[in-house]
């Protein structure tokens, strides 16, 4: 039982990381109809930037805040100068652009910091607490809580502020939103900036555990995409639930089903997708994807 609770909490922590990335992907998709495959790569770059400021002697929290702000700017610039001219065109081309961006960003990380794993300091103490007789690491718990708090903040931003309203309006129908004077271009930049911010937070939270490498989040991106497929592109809550479920499930499967084990646990969400796609093509929560004419 102790192991079980520990696995669940750890799973929720990693699941929350996937959820943050998945939300970033949904955010971009809602605003621009694209899937940003570079979301993970950009988040790694953010983590490296925080790392640089830590190396310069800044306190970790300050370094993270600086990185988050820079990530926002980077995300906004990427939208403006890289994706803008592909947004109205063929979505497949735009996807290839984000893959180019992923390669470029990963490459930049590799050129600047190499492929060796770098140790990234943890924001949270590496101690454990006992919950219901199970030993649970504070880091896992705090990571999950942090992500949940950020999601609540984000939800409030979207539902309770004028900026959030404008972002949703642009996501809904950019052409029509412009008729009410909404600066669509700038709002899209904000959307990408927010997505990059979310990614950055996920990056710095998971970096201590995974250690920094340019490809650190490749796998997490794949999990996040799985969560997006399972949760449905139109449903942020669905994605969060799916991401958490994936995090917990893969942990349990890795331990309790030796046939799969730790090395093959990544196949779990995709086996799940495979089954669900056959039964329920619109995902668990989302509406059916409508082909745009």
């Amino acid at each position, binding site marked *: 039982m102790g192991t079980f609770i520990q696995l669940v909490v750890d799973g929720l922590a990693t699941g929350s990381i996937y959820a943050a990335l998945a939300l970033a992907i949904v955010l971009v998709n809602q605003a621009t109809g694209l899937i940003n495959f570079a979301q993970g790569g950009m988040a790694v770059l953010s983590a490296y930037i925080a790392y640089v400021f830590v190396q310069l002697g800044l306190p970790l929290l300050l370094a993270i805040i600086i990185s988050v702000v820079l990530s926002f700017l980077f995300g906004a610039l990427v939208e403006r100068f890289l994706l803008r001219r592909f947004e109205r065109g063929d979505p497949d081309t735009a996807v290839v652009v984000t893959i180019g961006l992923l390669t470029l960003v990963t490459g930049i990380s590799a050129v600047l910091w190499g492929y060796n794993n770098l140790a990234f300091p943890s924001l949270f103490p590496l101690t454990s607490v006992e919950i219901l007789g199970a030993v649970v690491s504070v880091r896992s718990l705090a990571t999950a809580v942090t992500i949940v708090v950020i999601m609540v903040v984000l939800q409030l931003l979207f539902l309770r502020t004028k900026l959030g309203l*404008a972002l949703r309006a642009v996501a809904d129908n950019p052409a029509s939103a*412009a*008729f009410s004077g909404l600066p669509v271009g700038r709002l899209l930049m904000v959307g990408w900036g927010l997505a990059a911010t979310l990614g950055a937070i996920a990056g710095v939270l998971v970096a201590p555990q995974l250690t920094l490498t340019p490809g650190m989040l490749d796998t997490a991106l794949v999990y996040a995409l799985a969560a997006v497929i399972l949760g449905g592109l139109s449903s942020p809550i669905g994605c969060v639930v799916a991401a958490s479920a994936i995090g917990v499930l893969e942990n349990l499967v890795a331990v309790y089903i030796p046939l799969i084990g730790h090395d093959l646990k990544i196949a779990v969400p995709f086996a799940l997708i495979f089954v669900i796609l056959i039964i329920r093509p619109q995902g668990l929560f989302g509406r059916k994807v409508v082909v745009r004419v």
Partner: protein
Amino acid sequence: MTLLELTVVTASYGPLQVLDGVSLSVPEGGSVGILGANGAGKTTTLRAISGTVRTGGRIRFDGRDIRGLRPDQVAALGIAHVPEGRGTLGQLSVRENLLVGAYLRKDRKAVAGDIDYCLDLFPQLQDRVGSRAAALSGGEQQMLAVGRAFMAKPKLLLLDEASLGLAPSTAKAVYEAIRRLRLESGIAMLVVEQNANLAFSLVDTATVLETGRNVLTGSSAELKGMDEIRRAYLGG
């Protein structure tokens, strides 16, 4: 005083030229109709004004040259476009749609008052302020689109085929509300409408377009009497 003046405006979608020299003017507080058959360039004329199509010629609004501005910049100057197909924001609630209309306004209290005014103008929307716009009927969506445009407190309203796809009685109700809006707010209007009777109920003067050009301009009373015009362009 002339509020909006188009002088030999041209417009094209890629290689396809749709406007071939359209001229018209809307006086302050006035209401002008654009009539014509399908494909004559009515919708494109409105798009040219709101900056959603590549345009040549001269477009002056409120003493400024506005040709080449982005749609949001045009909107900021006081032109609200109710596009063909309504353009309601389907995932947003009715109230949120109205709030989006007031995006550029800072006077929160007056905005709240204007939302009440919209709901008074379109009583059908009253029970539905919380529901998603996509769940509304076609007529309700049209009302919402007009209401959202009004929320910007524009000087000029561009109204595109507000009767499209509506039952005749609904279309009539929509136009009655718009007429009331015009009387009470004094907003100038440029109206594209297929249904001649509805159009003439709202506009003082009108211009008839044919293949992207004006062929006739006159007061409602003059045009209404011209049988051949009715047959040729207005479909009865």
